[in-house]
């Protein structure tokens, strides 16, 4: 990065919050602080919802995911449009009619206080940890490749967000997310165009895609019914539906986005905008990863994308092993480039043989990378995040022109800030409205609750930075976030669906069904290896099955069921 890059980076990440602070200057009532005002229109809501879901992991890790495993991850979003329609038709009108600040207030009105607190508690645990991951994930990668100090990177990503989210509440989160998302979309479009432009002229774009497809990178839709296969059409539609329904219907970080402004029409239009644009957006981000994969078939890639870890291993006395692996890798690269040309140029009857050869060489390259990883582990520099998380950032730093590098680093930080702001805003609001107001200070003034919400938002910001400072990731960055969500979302969604659709069920039955469902999902998570998207379905189904059973047995005489 040079001065131009830093100039673009700093100007981009500072200008948007400063504009947001100017737009939200002056004092706000509790309603304005937690829900914004009527000036928030559907475009802002739509971009805000999009930015909250995307986060830095989408833009940093997803191209690397496609580079490594292909674009099949797209199927995880197949349940989302249907879920968004259900949220528009059922959830939003109820929230707007009851004028709730948080989704969990509805559980309190429909059932009782303890069910409201259970929903809010599950949300706080899940989102509190997720907020830490959202900050940590890009910070660990950016600090490694740019040589920044990890703690300072975490504070750069998290500190600024805390300040403006605390000051401006929901309205500033919506306004900043709108412009951050515009910067992100422009940045990613430029990255995509440059990646296509930088592809080898030896192959046409169509031939490039054909070869990528034959190498297993472009299977967007797979109808397999194997439950152990992570990304299929069915797991995406069914598991993805429950994940998205829970996320958009019952996760306060999203509920607060589309309730901003208070208009049913604007909320619905913002969500429908997401139903239409989400899949194409994710497709282009994943396709970018497949294009980078093809770029590195002609341009020599690093033996190991996490270069800082590789260089530390060299310095730790493992240069002979790594140099030998590098020499073999270079040889395989030359052969692989020739094999790709053969696949593209060979007559039809010889293509299969050329393809087999290419697959063999791809396997060899993968084996050499695995051996490199083993050497790195021996050298004591085993990285905390997956190598694929470094693919896109390496491509940015090595192949993009100056200025664009700064813009794309700003894209990653904008995504971090927008997702974190939404989360902190929701964590602060939920703690203030669902816990502080009813349990600690029931009859204080409006102003008192605004101050409390601000203090609690700041406190959650510090918790998130604390978690980020001590986090170490166990799997790919995308996966960590999604797995965490899936473990908790099913039970939360079950509470809401029981409230909407099971008339003859009371708070106590739903509360204990929720606890039982959560225990079941945690048990399955600890003891089985089923695809994580299914936890959403299992957790939700467990609540919906257990609650009526408990109602008819244990709580039959205890409570009188209330209407919806």
């Amino acid at each position, binding site marked *: 990065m040079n001065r131009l890059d830093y100039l673009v980076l700093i100007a981009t990440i500072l200008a948007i919050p400063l504009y947001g602070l100017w737009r939200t200057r002056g004092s706000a009532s509790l309603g304005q602080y937690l829900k914004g005002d009527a000036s928030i229109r559907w475009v802002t809501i739509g971009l805000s919802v999009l930015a909250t879901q995307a986060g830095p992991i989408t833009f940093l890790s997803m191209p690397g995911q496609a580079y490594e495993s292909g674009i099949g991850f797209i199927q995880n979003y197949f349940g989302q449009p249907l879920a968004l329609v259900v949220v528009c038709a059922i959830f939003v009108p109820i929230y707007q009619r009851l004028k709730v600040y948080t989704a969990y207030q509805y559980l309190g009105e429909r059932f009782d206080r303890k069910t409201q607190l259970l929903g809010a508690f599950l949300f706080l645990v899940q989102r509190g940890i997720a907020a830490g991951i959202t900050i940590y994930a890009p910070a660990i990668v950016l600090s490694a490749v740019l040589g920044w100090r990890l703690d300072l990177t975490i504070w750069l990503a998290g500190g600024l967000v805390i300040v403006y989210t605390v000051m401006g509440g929901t309205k500033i989160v919506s306004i900043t997310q709108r412009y951050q998302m515009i910067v992100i979309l422009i940045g990613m479009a430029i990255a995509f165009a440059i990646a296509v432009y930088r592809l080898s002229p030896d192959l046409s774009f169509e031939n490039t*895609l054909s070869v990528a497809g*034959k190498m297993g990178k472009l299977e967007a*839709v797979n109808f397999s019914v194997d439950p152990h296969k992570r990304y299929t059409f069915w797991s995406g539609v069914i598991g993805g539906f429950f994940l998205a329904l829970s996320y958009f219907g019952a996760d306060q970080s999203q509920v607060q986005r589309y309730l901003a402004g208070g208009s049913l029409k604007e909320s619905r239009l913002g969500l429908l905008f997401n139903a239409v644009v989400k899949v*194409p957006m994710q*497709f282009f981000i994943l396709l970018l990863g497949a294009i980078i994969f093809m770029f590195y078939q002609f341009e020599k890639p690093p033996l190991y994308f996490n270069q800082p870890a590789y260089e530390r291993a060299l310095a730790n006395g493992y240069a002979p092993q790594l140099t030998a692996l590098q020499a073999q890798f270079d040889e395989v690269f030359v052969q692989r480039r020739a094999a790709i040309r053969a696949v593209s140029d060979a007559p039809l009857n010889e293509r299969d043989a050329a393809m087999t050869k290419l697959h063999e060489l791809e396997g060899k390259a993968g084996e050499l990378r695995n051996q490199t990883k083993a050497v790195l582990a021996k050298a004591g520099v085993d990285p905390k995040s997956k190598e694929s998380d470094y693919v896109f950032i390496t491509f940015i730093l090595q192949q993009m022109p100056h200025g664009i590098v700064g813009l794309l680093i700003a894209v990653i930080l904008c995504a971090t800030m927008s997702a974190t702001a939404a989360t902190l805003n929701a964590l602060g609001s939920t703690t203030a409205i669902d816990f502080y107001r009813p349990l600690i200070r029931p009859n204080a003034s409006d102003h008192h609750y605004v101050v409390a919400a601000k203090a609690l938002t700041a406190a959650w910001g510090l918790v998130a930075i604390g978690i980020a400072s001590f986090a170490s990731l166990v799997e790919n960055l995308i996966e960590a976030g999604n797995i965490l969500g899936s473990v908790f979302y099913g039970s939360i969604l079950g509470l809401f669906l029981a409230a909407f659709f099971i008339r003859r069920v009371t708070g106590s039955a739903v509360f204990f069904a929720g606890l039982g469902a959560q225990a079941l999902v945690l048990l399955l998570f600890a003891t089985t290896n089923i695809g994580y998207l299914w936890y959403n379905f299992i957790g939700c189904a467990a609540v919906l099955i257990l609650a009526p059973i408990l109602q008819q047995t244990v709580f039959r005489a205890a409570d009188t069921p209330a209407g919806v």
Partner: protein
Amino acid sequence: MNALSEDAEARSWRKAYGLALSLFAVEVVLLYVFTLRFS
């Protein structure tokens, strides 16, 4: 009159949901065609 306008509004929202889901269905078909073409 009020009930009539509510009905009309509900109908127009149902159309909007149908449109969104139709567009999504087209997206999935295009992705499947893409998969068949390049895999």
